[in-house]
């Protein structure tokens, strides 16, 4: 799935070839697995009083699904936590993405453990078998995720059939005779509920996919809409997960209390046990045994594919951050099969470390929710408080409500599961540390400025604005920064109704004129300093009705380039200047001003401003 999440290259459209069926199957590959361990964990938490907890988890899943349908509607070009939170702040986006990373690490380990349990590996070998399985997934992914990625899609249908079969087999035995009222107070029930929340992250993957989803019939690539596709992808899966989990939970709790020991023992492969039991009741023990093997095989494979999906998604999220400069660029280095090699090693090694560090399946499950709930809370919170999103009030209310509930869940997880909090803090600490290191290495810095300044600096606001040529004079200003000379040049251009050519000469000490990187190919958009000057001047020019023409040159001799371009472009005025008065004095003492003054054609008037 990594390849589907990665590209956030603004402007460039990737082919929209994911239809609702494929998106749905991908979602099912994560959400569908939840029932494989949710009901078992619910039984561990509250025994025969666990039905309200299972139903509450189903309701939360439905609520999250509804919200993500809205998210997909408003983010047709990708609406995962990173994209949604990035509109608020890059830092928040990184925090959201790192929480997702924490989730994928645990998902890989947990799904692996559950997979080997369903495939019948005894408990004492489960940890070693899971490590071997994760290593295997890593080796397969070394050659690229192309083939492994579609396994979950093939497995979706058999899994649904198996779920329907178990429900059908248990339908005749459903009863409420063994249900117990809640044993503990509401506070404890809430904690138990929080402990059972698992496998919500698939919906994040679907939100990320909207950028490559097939468009709704009434929309166009320039005005994309994927509401219909996303709804069709999410809704059936949500219904299956909600009703499937609730009914299977009920089926589990319809067994008599004499099965308590068995249920506890099979908490990790509860569905296999249920399948075996109810098929045995209907068709005899041998059929039950065979059906149990089928259930185990299907869920084992589905969970195996969930391990793969988690590892690929983990690589994808970090790769996307590296592409965006939020992680060291070295992490994005690919092997010859196009897989980021360092990330692949990390994506395999970290879940293995987590497996070694945790004691058992419950310990592993305890680490899960803090990441995914945090990421979803960041996503929904970002949407709720994003005023530019144009959400109707009821959608904003729904998102706000879900955000508050998930915040409550997150705080409870943090308070009641110290290992989970420590794990999340470690992932965030390491991730933000790498982010700071990567910013430092790529010469990026974080600054807090007023919104007006931020808008001026933002390059994409006006970068697409085309220059408007008018008859009249041309003024060229040679800029070396955002200095008062730019303001003066704008004044002049406004007053004289002239076209303003903003010239930025990138001075390089050594210039290979014969090399392929010729002057003509240099783009101001690729030079951050030039970009800031050009964007600012273009924006101000637009505000003041001045036609601004960016002129960018790379040269080893600034003076001759200024002279050349002034003459070539036939400007009427050439304005040069300095940022400060002492800099102007230096400019005047330097050879640049005198050389320009000497060599500039007489027809071009020179203004030295400071």
């Amino acid at each position, binding site marked *: 799935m990594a390849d589907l999440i990665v590209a956030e290259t603004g402007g460039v459209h990737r082919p929209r070839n994911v239809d609702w069926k494929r998106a749905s199957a991908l979602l099912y590959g994560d959400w569908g697995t939840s029932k494989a361990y949710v009901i078992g964990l619910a039984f561990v938490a509250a025994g025969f009083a666990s039905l309200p907890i299972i139903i509450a988890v189903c309701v939360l899943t439905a609520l999250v699904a509804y919200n993500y349908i809205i998210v997909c509607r408003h983010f047709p070009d990708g609406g995962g936590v990173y994209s949604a939170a990035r509109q608020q702040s890059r830092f928040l986006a990184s925090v959201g993405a790192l929480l997702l990373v924490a989730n994928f690490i645990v998902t890989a380990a947990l799904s692996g453990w559950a997979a080997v349990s369903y495939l019948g590996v005894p408990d004492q070998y489960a940890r070693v078998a899971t490590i071997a399985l994760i290593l295997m997934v890593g080796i397969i992914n070394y050659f690229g995720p192309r083939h492994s990625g579609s396994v979950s899609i093939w497995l979706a249908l058999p899994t649904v059939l198996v779920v329907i079969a178990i429900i059908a087999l248990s339908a005749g035995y459903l009863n409420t005779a063994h249900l117990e009222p809640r044993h503990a107070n509401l506070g404890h029930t809430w904690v138990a509920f929080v402990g059972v929340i698992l496998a919500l992250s698939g919906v994040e993957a679907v939100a990320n996919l909207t950028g490559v989803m097939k468009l709704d019939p009434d929309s166009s690539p320039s005005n994309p809409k994927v509401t219909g596709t996303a709804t069709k992808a999410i809704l059936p899966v949500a219904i299956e997960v909600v009703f499937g989990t609730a009914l299977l939970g009920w089926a589990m709790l319809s067994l008599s209390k004499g099965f308590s020991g068995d249920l506890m023992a099979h908490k990790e492969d509860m569905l296999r046990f249920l399948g075996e039991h109810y098929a045995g009741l209907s068709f005899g023990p041998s059929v039950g045994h065979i059906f149990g093997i089928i259930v185990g095989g299907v869920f084992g494979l589905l969970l195996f594919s969930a391990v793969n999906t988690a590892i690929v998604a983990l690589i994808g999220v970090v790769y996307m951050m590296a592409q965006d400069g939020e992680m060291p660029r070295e992490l994005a280095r690919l092997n010859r099969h196009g897989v980021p090699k360092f990330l692949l090693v990390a994506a395999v090694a970290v879940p293995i470390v987590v497996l070694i560090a945790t004691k058992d399946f419950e310990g592993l499950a305890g680490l899960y929710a803090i990441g995914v709930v945090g990421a979803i809370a960041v996503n929904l919170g970002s949407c709720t408080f994003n005023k530019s999103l144009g959400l109707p009030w009821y959608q904003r209310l729904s998102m706000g409500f879900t955000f508050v509930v998930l915040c409550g869940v997150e705080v409870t997880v943090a308070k009641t599961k110290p290992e989970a909090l420590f794990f999340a803090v470690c992932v965030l600490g390491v991730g933000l540390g790498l982010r700071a290191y990567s910013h430092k290495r790529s010469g990026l810095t974080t600054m*807090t400025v007023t919104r007006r300044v931020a808008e001026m600096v933002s390059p994409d606001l006006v970068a697409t604005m085309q220059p408007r040529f008018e008859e009249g004079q041309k003024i060229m200003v040679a800029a070396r920064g955002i200095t008062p000379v730019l303001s003066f040049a704008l004044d002049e251009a406004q007053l004289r109704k002239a076209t303003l050519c903003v010239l930025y000469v990138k001075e390089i000490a050594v210039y290979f004129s014969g090399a392929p990187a010729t002057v003509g190919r240099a783009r101001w958009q690729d030079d951050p300093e030039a970009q800031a000057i050009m964007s600012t001047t273009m924006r101000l020019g637009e505000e003041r009705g001045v036609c601004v023409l960016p002129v960018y040159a790379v040269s080893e001799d600034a003076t001759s380039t200024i002279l050349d371009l002034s003459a070539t472009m036939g400007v009427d005025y050439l304005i040069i200047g300095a940022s400060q008065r002492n800099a102007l004095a230096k400019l005047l003492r330097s050879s640049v001003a005198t050389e320009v003054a000497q060599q500039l054609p007489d027809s071009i008037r020179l203004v030295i401003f400071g």
Partner: protein
Amino acid sequence: MAELILESGVHRPRNVDWKRAAALLYGDWGTSKAYVVGLAFLAAGFSSLPIILAVCALTGLVGINYAVICRYFPDGGGVYSAARSQARLLAVVGALLLVADLTVTAALSGWAALSYFSVPLLKEHIVLATVMVLVVMGSINYFGPKHSGTFAVALALPTAIVVILLIGFSVPHLTFRYLEPTHESYKQLWVQFVGVILALSGVEAIANLTGVMKLDPGSTPERPKVARESAKAIWPVAIEVVLGTALLGWAMLSMNPNETVHGANGTHTIRQVLALRSEDTLRFLGEHFGSLAGGSFVGLSLGWVVGIVFFLLLLSAANTAIVAMIGLLYMMARDQEMPLQFMALNRHGVPRIPLLISVTLPVAVIIATANFTALAGLYAIGVVGAITVNLGSCCFNRSLPVRWYDRSLFGLTFAILFVVELTLARTKPDALFFVVCVLLVGLGVRSLTQHRAGFKTMVVSKQVAQMVSPDMVSMLKPHLEEGQKIMVAARGVTPVLTFALEEAQLRRAVLCVLYVKEISVFHGGATLGRSRWEDDPEASAVMALMNQLGAQRDVSVVPVYAVSEDPAATILDLSATLGVDHLIIGASQRHALANLLRGNVATEVAAQLPESIRLMIFG
């Protein structure tokens, strides 16, 4: 102390000498022994000496680091200042960690104070009593910290005397006989050591104080140095704390664990009593060794003296923490990292909301924990985190001219404290949860503040960051308002006059045409003002033409004539005197312009013209 941390650009009087600074530091560090030895005993019983010594060693190491920091940050070197040079976010994180620390310091010191006072009624309802104490302190601070702030200073000497007395009484009984080997593995020992680290935050206050410390002899306000002054403040306190804690710890472990003593709660062995009285161990030491030296009356009296002195010192430490938290929140608000409402003062000049927060937070923490050991467990994560951020910022700040051995020292201490912080986070879940809550709430409030104040945080390249100055918006505002004045310095009828006229017409400005008659010898006694342009044929040609052209173009032309031996100085004088907005100088021809640029006039004018007047050199 709050107001001492605040200012950045403006110089405040440097009136804190090393003695006062040392006393302020002692108000926090000095209290540490009041509960460190007790907590160490709870952690490891009669095998706790290595832990106590390790805590003393860490305290000494931190002391050395901060003495160096004070040398490099003579204008304030707390975590907020040091980390701000790396990133604003990091500075706020450091400050919030300090808030977490001060919250617990206030609560813990209040609790320990009442324990030392040892009034049964107060001890029975210690949670409520501590809450009441904090509320009373908040009420006192409502009227300003002027009087309460000097309390710690006044108490430093009696406390030091009491510590010396305690050590003096215990010296004859010091022995290694009852020490037990460590019961645990090294890993457990490390965890126990980490659990006993307390009361390091005073050193942060000293680092903050460097901006108001008296300067070292030989340094100036422009090039301040407080290395000696701060070293004199830190060293005696660090030595007292290190040696005092070690000796008192040894004294505690020199008591016979199996000896029985009779107390208000019955008869217990020393081992049991030390566990029961872990909150006022020093008082018990005073009672015990006092009795051994001069009978029960002396013991009881010494116990009361120790109890009262430490009660007052700990109360003042709680007060200092409250005042410091108010200062920290106020400073962040001034820096627009916290809501501006945090700066609203009451009529006594105290920030209302920070005062409320600095009382409410410790009260909430006391109610939530309701246990001294649990409260102590919350302490270290904040202060160790803040000191780690400070030392890490100094270590990795390449622009700080730190010598290699100082940088190595910072790096080593940073690494140790980082591991301590990780251990705390791993072994004290409540502390981690508490500090995460403080950070999340703090960063949430910061984000809301910046949103409301119209600020945006953006990631840009360093070059762009250098270009984007805070006054960029005003700098790029159009300067096209009517009523501007343009002055053109003319030396003949040249194109620069046409340009100046165009400018004046377009900008609807008044055009001052300046003609400077340059003379080689000028008699100062002669009357500059009396010279008339009408008497100078060249000048009158220029002026007449400009008057005529001005009338045609509806531009108001003001002739300005001067006789001078220094044209550049005259141009500068008149530009400033007339308050022009633009000064235009030029040359008749291109080669003349080149000469002008090579000459002195243009460069002198460019160098000396006030920044508010814009200069255009035309050619």
